[in-house]
């Protein structure tokens, strides 16, 4: 049996693509200029940056002035939620409407809205993780400044009906933001067809480096900057632009879209084969978000009677990398807020594993992972022969 390590955590991050490395290289070397400089080095950098912006815009169906480069998903989400709230408070729109299954970047930004005197509202999701549209509508009144619903959930892969939600939000006069970090390259994103006002993307999920992302900002969207400084990026994002990484993001985005169809089919097959094989070996495994529309690269499962943390360690020691939900700073595991919001019982939520397929995934990964999971599940659920540690009667 092969012992090549298996990486099944593409929703956490992906390796930088060779094409991206090659595209970025000149900007660490001869083309090092500051895009704001008037001389030839500056001009060269400016041209590269403008071109990168155009290329990213084209990938989103956007005008190039609607693309703002950021440091990544968290900044994009914060800029969207807080930037709109802070601008619109004065018109009496002081609420941020979102859902309990958002990435922490949106949830914490909405919480910050409340800290700043605004109102934080959460629309319910059902047991599959799909936003309850009726509840969403009931919370949507003329005090909502911004509504934010993530397109593809990073933990369970559930796809929301963003076109309908965006339309409803717009009709109520709210600005609509969607966190598209996991959606880019997985669902079709086109600003000309879907009326979102703001959309966050992140480079490192699609083969660009960590530390670059973009926020799509539809023209005339009220938005104040998070940072204060120079006039870079129309004042929306002051600070010397990261030219190399912007070029990297543009390259990765183009490649991702070009390969979208073939990759989508390949990932869907891997996911389907994985679920089928797992079901055959561990019939009582629970797949979270089942029955909802899901992205092809994420599968979140719980095997009753196991524990995420122990499984993650045991899998890693067998060379298989996945995660329990989203990664946290200390590297430890706690129950996912997404599964909790979906009403998954704590016991089951504490057993959750997220496997995410991508560029490094092959059919062999699926076979070996299912084997390992079945073995570990059997072991974890075997009745303990001896009480290892008799309870001391305290």
């Amino acid at each position, binding site marked *: 049996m092969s012992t090549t390590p298996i990486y099944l955590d593409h929703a956490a991050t992906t390796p930088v693509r060779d094409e991206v490395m090659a595209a970025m290289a000149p900007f660490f070397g001869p083309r090092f200029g500051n895009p704001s400089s008037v001389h030839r080095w500056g001009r060269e950098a400016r041209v590269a940056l403008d071109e990168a912006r155009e290329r990213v815009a084209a990938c989103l169906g956007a005008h190039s002035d609607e693309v703002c480069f950021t440091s990544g998903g968290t900044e994009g989400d914060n800029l969207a939620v807080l930037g709109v709230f802070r601008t619109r408070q004065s018109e009496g729109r002081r609420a941020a409407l979102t859902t309990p299954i958002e990435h922490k970047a949106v949830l914490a930004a909405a919480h910050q809205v409340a800290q700043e005197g605004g109102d934080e509202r959460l629309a319910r999701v059902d047991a599959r993780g799909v936003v309850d549209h009726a509840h969403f509508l009931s919370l949507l009144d003329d005090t909502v400044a911004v509504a934010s619903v993530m397109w593809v959930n990073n933990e369970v892969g559930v796809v929301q009906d963003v076109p309908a939600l965006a339309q409803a939000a717009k009709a109520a006069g709210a600005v609509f933001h969607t966190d598209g970090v996991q959606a880019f390259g997985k669902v079709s994103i086109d600003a000309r067809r879907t009326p979102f006002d703001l959309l966050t993307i992140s480079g490192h999920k699609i083969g660009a480096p960590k530390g670059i992302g973009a926020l799509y900002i539809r023209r005339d969207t009220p938005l104040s900057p998070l940072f204060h400084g120079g006039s870079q990026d129309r004042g929306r994002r002051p600070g010397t632009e990261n030219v190399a990484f912007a070029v990297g993001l543009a390259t990765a985005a183009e490649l991702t879209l070009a390969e979208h169809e073939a990759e989508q089919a390949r990932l869907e097959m891997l996911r389907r084969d994985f679920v089928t094989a797992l079901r055959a070996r561990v019939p009582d495994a629970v797949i979270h978000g089942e029955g909802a529309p899901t992205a092809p690269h994420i599968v979140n499962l719980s095997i009753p009677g196991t*524990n995420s*943390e*122990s*499984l*993650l*360690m*045991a899998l*890693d*020691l067998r060379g298989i990398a996945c995660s329990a939900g989203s990664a946290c*700073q*200390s*590297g*430890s*595991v*706690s129950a996912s807020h997404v599964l909790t919001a979906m009403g998954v019982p704590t016991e089951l939520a504490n057993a959750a594993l997220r496997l995410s397929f991508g560029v490094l995934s092959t059919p062999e990964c699926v076979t070996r992972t299912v084997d390992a999971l079945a073995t570990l599940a059997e072991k*974890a659920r075997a009745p303990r022969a*001896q009480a*290892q*540690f*008799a309870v*001391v*009667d*305290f």
Partner: protein
Amino acid sequence: MIYSPTFPSLDTPLPAKGERVLVAMSGGVDSSVAAALLVDAGCDVVGVTMKLHGDDADVPDRPCCSLDATSDARRVCETLGIPHYVTNLVDRFGQDVLNDFVQEYARGRTPIPCVRCNTFTKFRDLLAKADAIDAPWLATGHYARIGRRDGQAVMLRGRDAGKDQSYFLWGIERSVLERLVLPIGTQTKAETREIARRFGLRTAEKIESQDICFVPDGDHVRVIREHLGADAPALQRGPLRLVSGEVVGEHEGFARYTIGQRRGLPGGFAAPMFVVDIVPDERAVVIGPREALLGRGLEARELNWMADAPQVGDAVQVQVRNRAKPSPATVLRIDDRGIELALDEPIQAISPGQSVVLYDGEVVLGGGVIEKGRRVLPQFS
């Protein structure tokens, strides 16, 4: 092998080459060296750091149990070329250790959270993680040793008398000793640091953790207030009494006092006064001269035995605090409820909530939580 014979040999039985060992890594020098020695011996070592505190309770630079300490452990493992994981035991630790700590103070007692952390968190919950990753062995960086007596694993004091930590380890379930590895128990602290330097471990010069990990500023009253509220009876004013019953003043909450304490008591008496008793029902703190602190016996409960339990009439050595000189004692009574000991020489300041640990020479027999000290020995027929 980097390990050189200049250091005392490891007489603790080590796992065989290739066997998997989970090493509990706090991020300090002791557990770093424990891991290093096992890697050097060819074991399949996995480092695990216990996360015991919520993220909002993080204290930068705390030598153990902080994000910084976890990072140190991770980097040591990287240096040693072994995997490292963090296990989230916040809830378990909260129930078994923190909650008990607060409740004991509320009952006018002085708990030792480190004992319960060892008993429940480290040598029970963490051991379950060892099972989950198929590790037959669990190792820690404690200054104590595992030896064998009559074919069974027993715990011995650490060789370095100044560092011996066996006092805190009495609660470990006996069967666990068969799986326990204490690689640095045969060394002095100076030797441990020297080995850390040889291995190039970043924790070689790290300062010791002195405080209780969740009371980094030494202010245990703050922790009690956070858990029980400022209006908890243990934190309210109450009478300061003499042994005779005479009220001589007021105190600011009995949870601030420990038996034997002198600090914070009024002056003006013929002799220095000490806390000799705490009566939580009356919120009273009783003070008296040094003689009133002397105990001739004690009762302990919540017993655990790491060797065969002693019998009535047995002569043992006992310690009622860490690094005290062992005192000879005799078992007066022992049953499921507890043990009653007669002390051959009186001991000062026997504090309910603290541990009494029984030794037979170097061997740790076991111990219990002190229920009360006895000034007069009870009679058993």
